[in-house]
């Protein structure tokens, strides 16, 4: 029985080219990876040695060189997730679904690191790991929101349902970011205290300013590098499942011709 769109053995399709990579690396990721590594090394040198302690924050400013870039990269990640979610509901292509998912996972990692660094900073500055500092509180609430997003993606269902449901959550979660920010700010409005962001010297200069921007750049490059790898991994996982599907269709048809 031959029917259109049948499973054709997929040998002899590609003309002889250089062998396909056996990993998620490519030239582009290797360049990005190298840049990220060099940048990281430079950030360590600048952040831990070259920059002087801050006039107000003292040595703790060195934690901010981690804290601020991770939270910025996380927000970039969640915005990408939201944009990709909208695009998925519109275009319905696998690309956007996988991009949204990959970006959210890395965003969650960066949020976790933000909270981790914030707590260490708090331990030095306040003497306790946790205080209801608005930014830290907001970050934690949003972190939990996106854990929900990742949990939804792990529920076994059809790819289409998974894509639709998680796209909706990716959109709602990002809309909730400014609302949560505002609410938490007002909530803590009565209790002024030394905050991580509030105390960063707006007139930061020289090597400090340079290091702050270097940190941001390094983490954005790291994010891009991780995102490409994570996306390709998601892509490979879908392809592997699809191969299972081709086999299942063939098997299903055989079942018919037997009876």
């Amino acid at each position, binding site marked *: 029985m031959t029917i259109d769109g049948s499973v054709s053995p997929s040998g002899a399709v590609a003309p002889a080219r250089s062998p396909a990579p056996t990993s998620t690396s490519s030239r582009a990721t290797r360049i990005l990876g190298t840049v990220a590594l060099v940048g990281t090394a430079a950030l360590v040198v600048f952040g831990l040695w070259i920059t002087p302690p801050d006039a107000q924050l003292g040595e*703790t400013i060195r934690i901010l060189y981690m804290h601020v870039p991770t939270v910025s990269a996380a927000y970039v990640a969640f915005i990408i997730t939201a944009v990709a979610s909208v695009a998925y509901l519109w275009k319905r292509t696998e690309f956007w679904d996988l991009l949204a998912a990959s970006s959210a996972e890395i965003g969650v990692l960066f949020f976790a690191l933000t909270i981790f660094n914030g707590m260490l900073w708090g331990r030095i500055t306040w003497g306790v790991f946790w205080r209801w500092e608005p930014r830290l509180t907001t970050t934690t609430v949003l972190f939990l929101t996106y854990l929900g997003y990742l949990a939804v993606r792990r529920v076994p269902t059809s790819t289409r349902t998974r894509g639709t449901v998680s796209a909706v959550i990716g959109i709602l979660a990002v809309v909730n970011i400014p609302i949560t920010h505002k609410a938490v700010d007002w909530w803590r409005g009565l209790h002024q205290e030394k905050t991580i962001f509030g105390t960063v010297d707006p007139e930061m200069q020289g090597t400090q300013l340079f290091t702050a921007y270097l940190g941001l750049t390094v983490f954005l490059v790291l994010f891009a590098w991780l995102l490409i790898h994570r996306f390709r*991994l998601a892509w*490979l996982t879908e392809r592997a499942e699809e191969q299972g599907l081709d086999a299942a269709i063939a098997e299903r048809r055989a079942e018919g011709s037997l009876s």
Partner: protein
Amino acid sequence: MNEAAYIAAAWIGTFGAVAAYAAWIIRRGRQASELVDEQDRRWM
């Protein structure tokens, strides 16, 4: 001196976590690419 320990923990923890995550996805990428046809893993 305690301060230095917390700062070190922040840096090591952050880059350690990123490195561990990167190693994890790259390893899974290698495993997954073995299951997939060649034309499906030609990256740009």
